[in-house]
């Protein structure tokens, strides 16, 4: 993490006489900027970069929450066809962690932590995994949670009718017919091939445990074992969950959470500023808006550290990126620290073309240094001395265009001419992503290292956005999966990362903190990857 000023807010006491004029004006400028599209917006953040992180706090309000109260969360709806079925591609993400538990979850240190499974162990070759399940857990309808529910959840994910995004990850490993439940609190998962990191694949948010036989109803009922139970839910509309007093880990701090779906990001910020909601979920605020929110009396900014990683994927099947020397040159040519400063105002960590987040225990820190001269040399050897390429961006995310422009500037010093082209936001992921040779995109961090490398970088994977296929890399991943010694396995994943850095098509300039708009009353906000602490979050003066 870059050094931030330690103060949580530049204004500790609320202004005595209403909203000061200055903050009113900046609100107008920010909202105007947000409306004016990406060009105006990047202009705003560029102009404000003189005082990088001073106005935007590094963490939310400290202290303990009071018991009770209702938290109001504004969220972007997944689609008008949202469902509470966790396995679905259209699941209403924010509800899942409140309503359900998984067998295992991802700890803040990047290791697998217990949830409904208390412990798990492989056999000697890591081909069969045995999960010991927690006792005394009940679903919201009063039924006891048993291994039958755990097995059913896996079968439900693997069912082709569910079309779960996690199915392609699990189906090469798990045969739904071979799952065994020797007793009510043991689940045995025989794998088709050895996999020493298998439990980490069950930390995904599609893997929340649902009751046995609930496929048809779970999308509406939301019956899980989580800290909250469903009171109401409307697809792309409002909904409410209330504390489940019999939750196995104890009662949550809050009495209830109201979820409101607000599609427009500006409307979400407006609701927070007006005190209509307390938290903006899945919303990475742009710097101008974040600064306005931090300056208001009602709300401030918290951060989800390194919540997303930004990429400029080069399609390795398209010229000139078919040549590994060009890919290397494109990476050596730019300075990630420059992009981090220019596009993110330092709110994140330089990526150095490695997509594995720094907190992952398998992360390798080694990388080639920024070397524009070597980039020039490589391009000359590859016959692309005066390389000029189009880089597509859109207003889909506020960082895309600043990142593209910063890359353009940085790579320009190595003699690479980048033409930044803006595409429509609403069809960006159907028309540009994985179709144009070079574009700007991002991923949420939270995927465990095995899933990340296999899903995004393995040859033939449907999420492989660079279409990179490297036999040595794929073989390394296979070897890592078979390696039961944790230290040696991490080493293998480290070597795989080195191959991604040296040969792959992904330019990964940085990991970005998500700037989360949050009410000044909220206490105990904690979020990392796909984990949100619904149990401990609460309100001061609730």
């Amino acid at each position, binding site marked *: 993490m870059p050094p931030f000023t330690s103060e949580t807010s530049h204004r500790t006491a609320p202004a005595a006489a*209403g*909203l000061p004029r200055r903050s*009113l004006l900046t*609100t*107008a400028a920010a*909202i*105007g900027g947000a*409306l004016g599209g990406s060009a105006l917006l990047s202009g705003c953040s560029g102009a404000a970069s003189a005082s990088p992180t001073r106005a935007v706090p590094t963490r939310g309000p400290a202290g303990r929450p009071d018991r009770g109260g209702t938290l*109001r969360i*504004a969220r972007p709806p997944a*689609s*008008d*066809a949202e469902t509470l079925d966790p396995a679905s*591609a*259209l699941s209403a993400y924010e509800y899942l962690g409140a309503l359900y538990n998984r067998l295992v979850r991802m700890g803040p240190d990047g290791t697998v932590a217990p949830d409904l499974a208390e412990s798990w162990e492989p056999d000697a070759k890591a081909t069969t995994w045995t999960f010991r399940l927690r006792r005394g857990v009940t679903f919201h309808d009063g039924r006891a949670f048993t291994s039958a529910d755990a097995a059913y959840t896996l079968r439900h994910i693997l069912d*082709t*009718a569910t*079309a779960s*995004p996690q199915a*392609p990850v699990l189906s090469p490993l798990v045969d739904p017919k071979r799952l065994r439940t020797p007793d009510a609190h043991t689940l045995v998962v025989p794998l088709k091939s050895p996999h020493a990191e298998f439990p980490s694949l069950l930390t995904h948010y599609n893997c929340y445990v649902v009751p046995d036989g609930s496929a048809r109803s779970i999308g509406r009922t939301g019956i899980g074992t989580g800290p909250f139970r469903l009171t109401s839910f*409307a*697809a*792309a*509309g*409002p909904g409410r969950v209330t504390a489940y007093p019999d939750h196995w880990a104890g009662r949550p701090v809050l009495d209830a959470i109201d979820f*409101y*779906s*607000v*599609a*427009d990001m*500006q*409307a*979400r910020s*407006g*609701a927070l*500023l*007006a*005190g*209509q*909601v307390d938290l903006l979920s899945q919303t990475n605020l742009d710097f101008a808006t974040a600064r306005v929110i931090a300056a*208001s009396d009602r709300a401030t900014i918290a951060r989800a550290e390194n919540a997303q990683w930004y990429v400029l994927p080069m399609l390795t099947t398209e010229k000139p990126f078919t040549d590994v020397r060009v890919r290397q040159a494109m990476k050596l040519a730019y300075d990630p620290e420059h992009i981090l400063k220019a596009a993110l105002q330092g709110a994140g960590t330089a990526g150095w073309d490695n997509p594995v987040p720094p907190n992952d225990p398998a992360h390798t820190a080694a990388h080639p240094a920024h070397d524009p001269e070597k980039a020039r040399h490589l391009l000359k050897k590859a016959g692309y001395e005066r390389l000029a390429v189009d880089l597509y961006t859109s207003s889909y995310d506020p960082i895309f265009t600043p990142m593209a422009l910063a890359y353009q500037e940085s790579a320009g010093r190595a003699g690479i001419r980048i033409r930044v082209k803006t595409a*429509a936001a*609403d*069809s960006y*992921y*159907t*028309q540009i*992503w994985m179709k144009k040779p070079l574009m700007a995109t991002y991923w949420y961090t939270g995927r465990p290292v095995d899933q990340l490398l296999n899903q995004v970088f393995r040859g033939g994977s*449907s*999420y492989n956005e660079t279409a990179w296929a490297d036999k040595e890399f794929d073989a390394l991943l296979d070897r890592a999966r078979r390696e039961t010694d944790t230290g040696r396995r991490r080493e293998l994943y480290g070597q795989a990362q080195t191959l991604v850095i040296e040969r792959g098509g992904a330019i990964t300039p940085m990991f970005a903190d998500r700037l989360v708009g949050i009410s000044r009353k909220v206490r105990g906000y904690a979020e990392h990857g796909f984990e949100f602490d619904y149990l401990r979050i609460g309100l001061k003066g609730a």
Partner: protein
Amino acid sequence: MLTFLVRRVVSALGTLLLSSVLVFLAVQALPGDVATQVLGRDATPDAVAALRKQMGLDQPGWERYGHWINGALHGDFGTSLVTTKPVGGEVAQYLGNSALIAVVTILFAVTGSLVLGIVAGLYRDRWPDHLISTVSLIGMSVPEFVVATVLVLAFSVTVPVLPAVVLYGPGASTGQLLPAVWLPAASLAIVMAAYIVRMARTSVIDVMAGEYVTTARLKGLSTWRVVTRHALPSALLPTLHVIALNVAWLVGGVAVVENVFNYPGIGKLMLSSVQNRDLPVIQAIALISAVVYVVCNLAADLGSMALNPKLRTRGGRIR
């Protein structure tokens, strides 16, 4: 009179059919279809194929259009591809919410701007005229979403008396929506008012310079009577068409403003269904917009006839 009506209705139906074809083709021409749009980045080939089959997208486009137009003629607008609910009921619900905004907007914009326009016309080149003209010109030049943002800043953030966004879904009751109606309606009214004020002012100035007004004055009638009895009906005539066009414009303006306020109306439904490529819903909304345009213009024409004796006596000829 009757032939005029029949002619207008027939051409209106033609307009509606043509617009439905155009909208269908336009949506087909948009990149991506409902399956890829809904799935977004999870649009793996398997998932897309499964969803397409589920939604009946594996049939050719013209067949789906034929199916739709056949249903529409029988009053069935099909089911939404995304929510699988009947389109008719869904659109009606959102339309009802928008109607709330529209009614308030029209009431305020039309009465308010007519009064202002007339005042400006009567006090031509004096300070009330300068004030009204300047303010309305500013209102005209600022886009509705900027007006909306400034209003939110003033009445939701600085002095929190009205909600900044609507947090309810489309099923909200009128009572729940009522507090949230004022800011969207005000933003639309401010932008809309400018045109009507300008038009009303011009017509009043024109009419007041007319010979018959001078005659009326010479007869010794009071200014009030001259204005209400003689000048106004003639001054309203050209203004009516501007009002009609503006009411029709509301359908589009509402889309922008509703999204700023997260208001569960037809504009928000339109944006999300275009983003989702949800054809049956887009078609239904397009049809409604076309109906609004046609009806507004028809009403304006009939209104002009009622106000202008010349048009009535000449057997329905209209300039």
